[in-house]
């Protein structure tokens, strides 16, 4: 289901929904916000930034910003963003961003979605280490919450 080196993270997931449905969940900023957990203020437009507050309890102070790269309907949606950008006092805009790509392929049962986030090697080790130390407890708890929620909701 996944592969990763130090530069990239790759995930694959089979979705029982048409590419049209998945495309809408990814590229309608309100739908994206619902499953991702962010209150995006504007629509996704190639070359333009979209931002909004994270809606997870405990992370509401974090503003997420993406700059849309490509929108090829039902095939490819990509954006740049700054990973580990969790300290509201830090200006991350000078750091190299990573690229997030959502690739859609139709299957007999729905859609194969591949998510690739790449460009981590350009982010200094020391920055990553610091973000990890700041963030680790919060996310561990959050992941547990999500697991509990998903297993309770059929």
């Amino acid at each position: 289901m996944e592969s990763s080196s130090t530069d990239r993270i790759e995930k694959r997931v089979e979705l029982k929904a048409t590419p049209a449905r998945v495309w809408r969940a990814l590229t309608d900023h309100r739908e994206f916000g619902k499953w991702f957990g962010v209150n995006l203020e504007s629509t996704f437009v190639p070359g333009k930034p979209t931002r909004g507050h994270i809606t997870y309890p405990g992370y509401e102070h974090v503003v997420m910003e993406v700059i849309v790269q490509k929108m090829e309907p039902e095939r490819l949606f990509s954006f740049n963003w700054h990973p580990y950008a969790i300290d509201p006092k830090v200006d991350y805009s000078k750091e190299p961003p990573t690229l997030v790509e959502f690739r859609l392929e139709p299957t007999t049962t729905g859609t194969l979605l591949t998510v690739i986030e790449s460009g981590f090697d350009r982010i200094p080790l020391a920055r990553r280490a610091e973000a990890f130390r700041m963030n680790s407890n919060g996310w561990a708890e959050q992941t547990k919450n999500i697991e509990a929620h998903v297993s309770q909701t059929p």
Partner: protein
Amino acid sequence: MSARRRDNAGRDQRAQALLFFALGDPTRLALLAKLSRGSSCSIVRLTEGSALTRQAVTKHLRVLQHAGLVRAVRRGREQLYRLEPGPIDDAKRALEQISRQWDAALLRLKAFVEE
């Protein structure tokens, strides 16, 4: 730019400069390679088989210690050195953490589009 932000940036840059300086020397890399075999080593052990003096090895170890790559521990009267993989490990774990965040996000997406 806030003072805090400047402090952070300055600290990051200093930490990185130290890390890269420490790694950018063949003798120090050789010492790290010896230490990465697992156990703690004394200066005597680390000097064995090299053309370096104990003083030179001690000097290199100090640079590695300063960059947070090596830690000195005392056993009895002996000073031992061991690898401190913290900075590299933390960075690796940061990537694993993002990987887990994607797993969780995709589970939510799956529930969202399949409902």
